[in-house]
């Protein structure tokens, strides 16, 4: 069994109002060095599969088919032993 950990983030040129709000809060809390905050999400997928090359291909297909909206989001993933 393998696990894919997909990290989805907003594209750099897409405004992230949530990240801005969090950055503002961090500054208020005494973290002036926090100059920019971007919020994304992490999606974990457990796969009944032991071949990591095949898993990589299948995960890409999942990202393209559903997990990621390529208009506004970027992604990367890693594959680990589940």
């Amino acid at each position, binding site marked *: 069994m393998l696990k894919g950990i997909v990290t989805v983030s*907003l594209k750099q040129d*897409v*405004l992230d*109002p*949530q990240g801005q*709000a969090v950055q503002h809060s961090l500054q208020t809390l005494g973290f002036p060095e926090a100059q920019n905050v971007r919020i994304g999400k992490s999606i974990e997928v457990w796969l009944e599969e032991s071949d990591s090359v095949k898993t990589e291909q299948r995960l890409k297909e999942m990202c393209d*088919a*559903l*997990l990621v*909206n390529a*208009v*506004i989001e970027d992604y990367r993933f890693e594959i680990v032993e589940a």
Partner: protein
Amino acid sequence: MRCAVLVFPGSNCDYDLYKAVNSVEGMKAEYVWYAGDSLKGFDAILLPGGFSYGDALRAGALAARAPILKALRQAADSGVRVLGICNGFQILTECGLLPGALHRNSGLRFICDTVSLQVANTATPFTSGYAERADIPVRFPIAHGEGNYTCDAETLHKLEDNGQIVFRYSGSNPNGSVDNIAGISNLAGNVLGMMPHPERAMTDWMGTSDGRILFESLRG
């Protein structure tokens, strides 16, 4: 005119839309469940607002992959008129029938209000009835948390050049959408997505009846 009102798990404006359509002479609404596979015989297909699948993953993302979407695509490709309102608009961008994406309002808040809109293109099957009063803004209710329309510069350029921007917020922009976009159509003009709710603007006691013209235009 037979109109399908698609119903997804979590749709919540389906009954409003059904009632609005049936209040227009010559139009008849029928519900079609998301798990169905046929939209044959319908002259228009309407996607209601709500929170399909609880907005899981992204607003409209899962509904855009529901079984009925295959039939919706076929109908849209063959020229059947398709109208997506609010979550329906989100579904239409998620499934690729309309370009761009709708994301979080710039002010982060869910907004429930009545707003003024400019009808930016009255030469569509949805807006022809506004031609005589194109200079007067229409007033429609809005209720959304993710209505911030965005697309890349090239897409925006195409939307503008092809007259695909159908509604713009007039006055203040409630959600930060690019170019004040409130509603767009596809290139062929038979698919319209919009965040404001025409079905909630059908009679004066609702506060505005400006939405009725949209349904009457659709009926032709």
